[in-house]
C-alpha cells in the first residue's frame, strides 16, 4: 500500500520538453505551408503560429524545470496490465480494420480488459463479451438503424 516514490530526477520534464518543441516545429511548418490568405483580417495560419509559439514557450518552461529538483513522485506501474489493455483496444481496432466486425471486436475488448484487471476466467469473459456485443449490435442496427461495422458474425442477424 505504501507508494514507493522512484527518483527519476528530471527525466520526464526533459522528454516532455522535447515533445512539446517537436509539436511547435510541426505546427509552425504546417502553418507556413498554408497558401490561401484571407482577403481581409487575419489568416487561418495566425492561430497556428500562436499555438506554435505557446508550445515553444512551454517547452522552454519544462526544460527549466528539468534542472530543478523534481517534486513529482511517479509511482510504480504494472506495465503488463497496461499492455493487456492496449492489446484489448488493438483487438477492437484490428477486428474492425480487417472486417471482423463489431461483435468480435467488442468481445475481444471485453475479455482482454477483464484479463488486464486480473481475471483468469477467459472463456467466461469471452462469452459475456459476445453476449454484450450481440445485444448492443441488435440495439443499434435494428432499433436505432445506426449501422455498426459488420463482419461475418453480424451477417447472421
Amino acid at each position, binding site marked *: 500500500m505504501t507508494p514507493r516514490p522512484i527518483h527519476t530526477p528530471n527525466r520526464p520534464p526533459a522528454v516532455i520538453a522535447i515533445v512539446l518543441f517537436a509539436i511547435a516545429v510541426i505546427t509552425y511548418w504546417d502553418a507556413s505551408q498554408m497558401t*490561401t490568405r484571407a*482577403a*481581409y483580417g487575419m489568416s487561418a495560419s495566425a492561430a497556428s503560429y500562436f499555438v506554435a509559439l505557446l508550445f515553444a514557450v512551454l517547452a522552454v518552461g519544462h526544460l527549466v524545470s528539468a534542472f530543478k529538483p523534481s517534486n513529482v513522485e511517479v509511482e510504480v506501474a504494472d506495465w503488463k496490465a497496461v499492455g493487456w489493455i492496449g492489446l484489448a483496444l488493438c483487438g477492437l481496432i484490428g477486428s474492425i480494420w480487417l472486417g471482423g466486425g463489431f461483435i468480435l471486436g467488442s468481445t475481444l475488448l471485453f475479455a482482454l480488459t477483464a484479463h488486464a484487471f486480473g481475471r483468469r476466467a477467459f472463456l467466461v469473459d469471452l462469452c459475456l463479451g459476445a453476449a*454484450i456485443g450481440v*445485444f448492443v449490435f441488435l*440495439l443499434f442496427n*435494428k*432499433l*436505432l*438503424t*445506426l*449501422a455498426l461495422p459488420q463482419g461475418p458474425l453480424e451477417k447472421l442477424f
Partner: protein
Amino acid sequence: MRNFMKYGLMAAIVGSVLSFGSLSATAQDLELTITAPAGAGGGWDSASRSLQEAMMATGNAKSVQVVNVPGAGGTVGLAQFIGSAKGSPNQLLVAGITLVGASISNKSPVNLTQVTPLARLTGDPLVIVVSKDSPIKTIDDLLATIKTDVAKTIWVGGSAGGADHILAALVTKAAGADPAKINYVAYSGGGESLAAMLGGQATAGVSGYGEWEGQIKSGDLRALAISYPEPIEGIEAKPLKAQGLDIELVNWRGIFAGPDVQGADLDALKAAVDNTVKSEQWQAILKARGWSDYYAPTDEFKTFIASENDRVRSILTSIGLAD
C-alpha cells in the same frame, strides 16, 4: 449487467413504437445499402432515409439500409464508396453540389465523376437577402454597392467554398468586381448567419431559401433574388436570370451507383430509383420536407455532373480556394 437489462426494457418500448411503421415489401428482392456521406441528421442523411422509406413503401426494394460515413464534406464517404461499391449491384450513394465543391477544395483524389449517376432527385433554390432596414432595395442596388466598394460589402453565409460562397462570388463577378476580393464571412450554418443578418452585421446574406423563409415572409429580411433558373410558385423573389443576370445555382441532391456498374445490374437500379421517384409516396415526402423536385434521368444527370464539376472548379479557382 443490470444497466443492460434496463436497456432491454427500454428497447422493447422503442421496438413496439418503431414497429408501427415498418412494413415489409416483397415486390422486388433488391437488398440495398445507401451510403449517406454525412452524419445522422444532416441533409444527405435525411434524403437517404427518405429514399429508404419511399423505396420500401413502394415495394421497389426488399430492404434498404442507410450507412452514415461522415467526414470532410462527404469526400471520406465518397472515397470509401468508390472502394467498396465497384461493380456492386446493391450499393447506392446520395450526394449533392457540396460534395462537388468539397472534393475540389480538399484536393481529394476522388470526385463524383468516378461513380455512376442514376438520377438527380431534388434541387433547392438559394436566396440573396438584405436586412429590412438596408438602403439596398433591388439586386441592381446590390450590384452597384459591390462595384463601389467590394471590401465593405460584407456577405454572410455557409462554410467557405460551399454553395452559398459560390453564389456570392458569382454575383460579385457579375457586378464587375474581382471575386478574389469578396469579403465573405463564413458561418457554420443557416442559423448563425441568419443571426448575423438580423443583427445588422452584414450587407447581404446567402442561404437556402427554406432556411430563411420565415424571416422573408415576416418582412425581417428582404429577398432580392433566388438562384433557381425559373420562378417558383409561392416564392415572391424573382430568379437572377429574370433580372438580367446570367447566374443559376441550385443546391441539388442526386443518387449514384458504384463505379463500373453495368448492364442488367444498372438497369435494375435505375428502374428501382425511377419507379420510386415517380411514386406518390416520394412526392408526399418532397412536399413534407419542403424540397423542390429537380428530377433528371440518368443520361441528363451524367452530363450535368460533368458540367457542374467544371463550373464549380472555375469559380473556386477565381476565389482562390482551388488551383
